[in-house]
């Protein structure tokens, strides 16, 4: 589904992502792990179009998407979440979510001025999409809460719902369980698995190894911008290089 070929990003001579090649298969959960500063978020930014790669290629469903603008990438079906979730705190959750489906609508200024049929139809669709997404992440009952009042775990779910409202094929999740407690982490892992069961493909960055080891079908390990290993959780657990760079002996296979 997503193929990364020899991807490199230099920031003023500093190599943030160093000749990384890999592929993410449809209907799987792929995880990117690595120590802080390994280039994981930059890697996401390159795929999502926030940064333009210095060299290399990104193919999404066989189509070259290298260097496209983020909004363009989103319209092609790649959604993402961020480490910190930017919600508009003084609005309800449902109001925060409706804009998520905006990219699939076409109403412009003229539709707004004459209040066209198309606009009314599209606003209805956007609201339904938002509600469906909220239902999917299990928060339909708090759709009218103010976004500023909800818990960190709920924020993570809302962020996921927002990404989901764009009708993506592939979701890039940057620390979807960052800052939530272990019980809630299990719930979020279940949710991510549910996404895949519903035909989505997920690629995530996460530091919580227990979660990754149970959830991921495939793990890519980055260190200093370069890929040092790639494989199933079981293979990664055994990899001496990974243990050295990142996991430590705690997570090594017994």
């Amino acid at each position, binding site marked *: 589904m997503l193929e990364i070929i020899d991807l490199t990003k230099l920031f003023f001579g500093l190599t943030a992502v160093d000749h990384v090649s890999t592929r993410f298969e449809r209907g799987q959960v792929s995880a990117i792990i690595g120590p802080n500063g390994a280039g994981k978020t930059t890697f996401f930014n390159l795929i999502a179009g926030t940064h333009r790669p210095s060299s290399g290629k990104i193919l999404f469903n066989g189509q070259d998407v290298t260097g496209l603008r983020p909004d363009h990438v989103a319209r092609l079906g790649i959604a993402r979440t961020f480490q910190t979730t930017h919600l508009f705190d*003084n609005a309800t959750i449902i109001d925060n979510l409706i804009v998520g489906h*905006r990219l699939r609508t076409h109403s412009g200024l003229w539709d707004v001025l004459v209040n066209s049929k198309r606009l009314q139809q599209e606003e209805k669709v956007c609201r339904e999409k938002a509600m469906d997404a909220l239902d999917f992440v299990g928060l339909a009952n708090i759709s009218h809460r103010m976004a500023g009042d909800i818990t960190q775990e709920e924020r993570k779910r809302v962020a996921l719902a927002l990404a989901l409202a764009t009708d993506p094929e592939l979701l890039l999740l940057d620390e979807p369980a960052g800052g939530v407690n272990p019980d809630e982490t299990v719930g979020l892992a279940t949710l991510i698995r549910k996404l895949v069961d519903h035909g989505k493909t997920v690629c995530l960055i996460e530091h919580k190894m227990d979660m990754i080891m149970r959830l991921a079908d495939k793990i890519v390990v980055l260190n200093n911008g370069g890929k040092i290993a790639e494989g199933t959780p079981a293979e990664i657990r055994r990899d001496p290089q990974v243990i050295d760079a990142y996991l430590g002996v705690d997570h090594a296979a017994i």
Partner: protein
Amino acid sequence: MKRLRGKTGWILLALAALLFPLFAHNNYLISVATQGFIMALAAIGLNLITGYTGQFNLAHGAFMAVGAYTVGILTVDYQVPFWIAFALAGVVTAILGFFIGLLSLRLKGHYFSIFTLCVSYIMFLLIEKWESLTHGTVGIMGIPVPAGVGPVQFGTPLSQYYLVLAFLALGVWIMSRIVNSLLGRSFMAVRNSDELAEALGIDLMRTKTLSFVLSVVYAGFAGALYAGQVRFLGPDLASEVVTFDLVMFVLVGGIGTLLGPLVGTGLVTWMTQGLQFLQDYRMVVFGPVLIALIIFLPDGIVGTWLNRRARRADTTRGKPNA
């Protein structure tokens, strides 16, 4: 129910504006109110780019001057009929806004504000120094009043009052359409986080430019109405003081709310008039009041009220379920 209550509020406000001349005992008050409405129209426009889209534009007053000067130059020097000049004021500000927007909106946050402040100053200098076009510091005198439409003439302060009120009502109505639509949601998504908005597939440059152009068109028409009401234009209209007045109106009333700019303009205009008797000392009263407002009501009067109402609606909704 909630919708009905919202509508009632607007109708009451419109009614109050319609009946105001009955209670104003002299033409001076009516003229002050008319100018207040013109400023409110410009403030509503500023609120779109600054309040709803999150781009703090500090050239808004200059665009108002562009609209005013378009009318002034065309009617006085070229004998163009008022309403044609009026329409062209919208076109000229839109075109100018498009190109300035395209250039300045590449910058973010404070850089955008500083850039637009510079643009504003350049426009002021152009108006002041380009004497063959703008009459320089002498200004443009003898601008005709808006031409009559059918049997209705706009020669008196009272008829001007209702003319400007009609445009203000139209402006508010169009703005409510915009901000309550998907388009408005795109603007607010950009304000909330441009990074997130872009990841949600919103074309940042296009969205911001559209908001900017719409916003300055409001300023352009406000300026055109100003030209027809005051009938004299000087370069001071393009000075940053006008912009900062508009910013103050928006902040006091409530940035990013529909009603805010109206309340802010009304309140500040009323306060400045009420404090006239203090002459130069009025700033001693005005300053601290303004500071207190910003400290204690950072979301403005309307913003604070709306937040409180939304929160209350949220808690009452929660109860039956809990």
